[in-house]
């Protein structure tokens, strides 16, 4: 009798364990292929009234705040913004760096997790890659917006012209232009490649205009062995290649500042410092987006589970520590260097009238993640994660704001000091690009499968549990 009870309870706990595993990991909770395809299609095709209202609001935001104010700025002149001598770059470039940072991290997270075969990545790689594309779309507008004469922007593009003049390849702005174009192209291809099988899936399950779009985009994908083989190879190459591209591109963005002689910008650590900052804000933005997707779209609670927030929370914590390390390094070496103007600048950042920006940066980027994210319970509360990662992004915005207008305001000669304050146009256009990002993302969420279904299914096929001694262990087969 006693022996029987023991076996019974053992079986019970074993099944409980299996249930826990299923609850916890998407990879251990397989659903029939057709059902899962249907779930993704349903999520894509369901639009509530709220969705349309949100779409309309953000669309209006793009029209009025971005294009309206930008048009006025083009006609009237750059003076409608708050810029002045010596703060010639201000909120626009701040937001530019912010968006480029966010966009870099989207593809980076996807690629690096793919390269290291982190299984929790499978449901959200596409959400992160989309963030890259739209972040670039929003960010790449700023080099145009901030031009004094935007109608001549094409003079910065290398092309044979009537003036017999190439752009100045010594200028970081030309490097910037080339780097961002490279990144936009490569990250779009990297987004598109894994999308092909899903587009084909959607093509086979839709009718009308959707069908024609997917048919065109799916490039006649049939799912033969040869096609899969080539696709895997291409994705693999891109995942590896895009990581160094991301590093170099964001380093180039940092060179916009680091190669200049401006006090506080002239720093060799800016390259890695910017990369870490970009990844910190980007990973945080991925969490924000996943929270919104998971809580507003149909069927997404199945795909985006607590394990995702848990793992990304750890990543945010690590990158927050790395960021703090670089910040400390930059600060210490600048201070130790003893150049009077730099010391004045650092004192001004920490004690001047705009010190609140500096403290916001430190609190949001260091104190908040360090105090909260070590805790598993907090990492597994999506709303808490949303709030924390939003604050991290506020902190990262404050970091860029400190680096650009606040640093420019402090020049070598006290006579040149000047405080910048943003005006309506600066703020509207910045909000306008946020509207643009959200608008594009909202549209895309209903037009392309946000979940890479085939990758999830592939992962689920590869996963199984094995008995090892008394316990069960997960084993993942190598399918690729």
């Amino acid at each position, binding site marked *: 009798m006693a022996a029987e009870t023991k076996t019974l309870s053992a079986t019970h706990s074993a099944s409980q364990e299996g249930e826990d595993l299923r609850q916890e990991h998407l990879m251990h909770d397989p659903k029939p292929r057709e059902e899962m395809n249907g779930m993704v299609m349903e999520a894509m095709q369901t639009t509530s009234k709220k969705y349309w209202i949100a779409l309309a609001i953000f669309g209006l935001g793009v029209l009025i705040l971005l294009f309206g104010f930008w048009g006025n700025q083009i006609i*009237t*002149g*750059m*003076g409608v913004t708050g*810029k*002045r*001598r*010596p703060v*010639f*770059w201000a909120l626009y470039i701040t937001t530019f760096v912010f968006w480029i940072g966010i966009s870099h991290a989207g593809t980076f997270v996807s690629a690096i997790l793919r390269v290291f075969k982190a299984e929790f990545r499978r449901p959200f790689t596409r959400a992160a890659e989309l963030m890259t594309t739209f972040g670039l779309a929003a960010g790449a507008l700023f080099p145009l917006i*901030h*031009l*004094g*004469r*935007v109608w*001549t*922007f094409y*003079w*910065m593009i290398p092309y044979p012209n009537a*003036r017999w*003049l190439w*752009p*100045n390849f*010594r*200028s*970081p*702005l*030309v490097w910037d*232009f080339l780097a961002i174009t490279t990144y936009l192209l490569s990250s779009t291809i990297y987004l598109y490649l894994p999308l092909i099988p899903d587009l084909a899936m959607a093509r086979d399950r839709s009718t009308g205009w959707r069908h024609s779009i997917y048919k065109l985009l799916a490039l006649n994908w049939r799912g033969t062995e040869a096609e899969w083989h080539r696709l895997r190879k291409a994705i693999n190459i891109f995942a590896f290649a895009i990581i160094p591209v991301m590093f170099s591109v964001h380093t180039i963005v940092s060179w*916009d500042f680091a*190669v*200049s*002689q*401006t006090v506080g910008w002239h720093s060799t650590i800016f390259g890695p410092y910017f990369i870490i900052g970009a990844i910190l804000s980007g990973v945080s933005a991925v969490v924000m987006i996943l929270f919104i997707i998971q809580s507003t779209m149909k069927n997404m609670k199945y795909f985006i589970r607590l394990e995702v927030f848990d793992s990304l929370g750890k990543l945010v914590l690590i990158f927050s520590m790395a960021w703090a390390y670089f910040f400390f390094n930059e600060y210490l070496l600048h201070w130790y260097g003893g150049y009077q103007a730099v010391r004045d600048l650092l004192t001004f950042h920490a004690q001047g009238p705009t010190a609140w920006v500096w403290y916001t940066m430190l609190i949001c980027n260091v104190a908040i993640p360090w105090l909260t994210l070590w805790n598993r319970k907090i990492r597994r509360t999506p709303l808490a994660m949303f709030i924390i990662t939003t604050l991290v992004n506020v902190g990262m915005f404050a970091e860029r704001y400190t680096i650009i207008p606040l640093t*420019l305001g402090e*020049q*070598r*000669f*006290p*006579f*040149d000091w*000047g405080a910048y304050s943003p005006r309506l146009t600066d703020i509207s256009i910045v909000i306008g690009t946020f509207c643009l990002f959200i608008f594009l993302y909202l549209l895309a969420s209903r037009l392309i499968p946000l979940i890479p279904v085939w990758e999830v299914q592939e992962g689920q096929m590869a996963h199984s549990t094995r008995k090892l001694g008394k316990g069960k262990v997960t084993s993942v087969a190598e399918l690729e």
Partner: protein
Amino acid sequence: MSEKVEAKKWGMVVDLDLCTGCQACVTACAMENNIPYTGEDETAYGRGLHWIRIQRYWKGEYPEVSPTHQPVMCQQCGHAPCEPVCPVYASVHSEEEQINVQVYNRCVGTRYCANNCPYISRTFNWFDYPHPVPESYSLNPDVTVRRRGVMEKCTFCVQRIRHAVDTAQAEGREIEDGEVMTACQQACPTGAIIFGDLSKKESAVSQAARSQRSFRLLEELGTEPKVVYLKGGGNYGG
């Protein structure tokens, strides 16, 4: 046409001990170079388009204070930070005059040059500034009127340099020392500004630049400025 033109090294000496801070140079510069008036509020906010400005600092503790004045314009660096950063070659070095020139028509308005200038000597056209009648009658026909969205800065009155060089060439003679006067130099009541060719040892500007009182602004940055300041003990009048 193809005869080789000898490169000059135009330079300036500003004697700070003679400067009274009267702002005559600022006014003269605006008249000569068609610099628009941006108004009181805009200038107070930091958008005055001055190519030369008097940096005033106070010495001593209140009430025992005395002002020091320092006219600062583009330093026409030999190794200029503004030049390499311009993506469209709007900020370039002139071989013949050895000064930095700003090509207004080529400028797209990235304002990178202004950020990278350690002297913050560049100014930007935030708007189209009107030149209403009768102000427009006083516009200098030798100088471009700039439109919104382009950067501008002190040119060492390059139109005067060109005029003098062309005249001398037409008359088949060497250009004389002191033949070119910049607008600020012309207006300076105390003669604190000397302009001329630094490559000639005997020119007034070279002799003044060799003074023991001479220094250059932010020399440690390696920008090789062509404006030399003289500073000894006191100030003119204080």
